[in-house]
């Protein structure tokens, strides 16, 4: 095996390790947000390593440029998807789909009990508490999620604000 193939093999093994780590995170972490975090970070890096390995094996600049574009687009797609799904998971909605009984998207910090998951009322209560004090129900101060401004005043500053715990404006 040439030196390029050896390097590609090492990169592939590393990439596989990161993919494995992402999947383990998806399966084992306790909460939807930590799962999302583990998954997207590890998978992005895994994809980057795989693209690098394939670029080494491919041997053409055009192919390498295409792989770079694929990786960058993968970063963009994963970032936006993760952000949107995480934001959607924050909404205190009873997004249970019919027939499976009691599935609810609960704010972070609450545990899922499966069939005896949080009811909508207590979820809204906890969310109101969180908005009022900027603190999670267990007292720890956490990053204020993007305040729900109405559409015509959202100036695009909310997701980019540094995480300062402050009361709801």
């Amino acid at each position, binding site marked *: 095996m040439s030196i390029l193939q050896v390097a590609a093999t090492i990169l592939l093994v590393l990439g596989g390790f990161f993919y494995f780590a992402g999947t383990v995170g998806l399966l084992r972490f306790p909460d939807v947000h930590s799962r999302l975090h583990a998954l997207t970070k590890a998978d992005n890096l895994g994809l980057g390593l795989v693209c690098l390995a394939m670029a080494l094996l491919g041997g053409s600049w055009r192919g390498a440029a295409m792989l770079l574009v694929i990786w960058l*687009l993968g970063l*963009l*797609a994963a*970032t*936006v998807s993760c*952000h*949107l799904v995480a*934001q*959607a998971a924050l909404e205190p909605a009873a997004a*249970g*789909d*019919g*027939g*499976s009984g009691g*599935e609810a998207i609960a704010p972070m910090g609450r545990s899922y009990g499966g069939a005896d998951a949080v009811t909508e009322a207590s979820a809204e209560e906890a969310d109101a508490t969180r908005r009022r004090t900027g603190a999670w129900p267990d007292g720890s101060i956490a990053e204020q999620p*993007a305040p*729900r401004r*109405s*559409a015509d005043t*959202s100036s*695009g500053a*909310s*997701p*980019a604000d540094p995480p300062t715990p402050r009361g709801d404006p």
Partner: protein
Amino acid sequence: MSLALDGLLAIALVVLALQVVAGASLFRGIVMFVVFGLVMALAWARLRAPNLALAEAAIGAGISGALLMLGYRRLRAAGPEATRPGPRSSRLAAPLSLLVAGLVASLGWTALGLPEALGAAGAAVVAAMPSQAVANPVTAVLLVFRGYDTLLELAVLLVALAGARAVEGPAGPAELATPTMTGLPIVGALLAALVPLSVLVAGYLVHAGGNAPGGAFQGGAVLAAAGVLLVLTGRLVPHPVPGPVERWGAVLGLLVFSALGLVMLARGQGMLSMPGAWAIYLVESAMLVSIATTLVLLLGAAPGLRRGPLP
């Protein structure tokens, strides 16, 4: 190793298909269906059919997923009972499915055992390829050897659009509000990156379709996906009156293809014969516009689309 890979793909396809229709939860079925499209594209890739893999990626995994998700949102808006899956299947389901599976298996077994037919169409196409203007046999089959089928497929798309309009009625379906979250700047950045790139990739697929895997259907699906993104994020809003872009876009493919065919007929060279690679690219570009417009209008569920308010 490849046997293990292919075997695992086959098992995954069957398991996913079962999960889609098993129906414990409608949302789970939708996600399983999207995953099924992804694995199907992998299967096409393994079967050395990149054209089909391209089409499956664009339509099966992308647009169908968005369509089903939109349908689920409308169901949710109708009330919480609307998303409850239907009643349990009847007792006939298991024996019937076993019977059908046995029938398919026996047909497959027989087909595999048949000797290779002489003068099969595929061999004839491959033999005729060197004299064609394009090198991609799929494009040659679609536009040169079976151009009539492609023409009628365009007509079917138009009929489907008209049928969807007829079923919805003049008022269109109930309004589906655009969620605030799509006003986030990160979504704007996504659109700014993806929409122009989709136009570029669609053009590239049509251009590459002559000599490499690609083609008008795949390019049209990519362009339609960009349009679907714009509709989903509220940059394009439904409008009860179609504008000239929608009207012309929906019929352009059919018009150009038929016009070319009639011109060739008038010149005595036989209807739908392609006088060169330029004719193929012309027809494919028109098809691209038509397919994209039709798909976006079907998903937007409105006769026309207008630019929406800036978030």
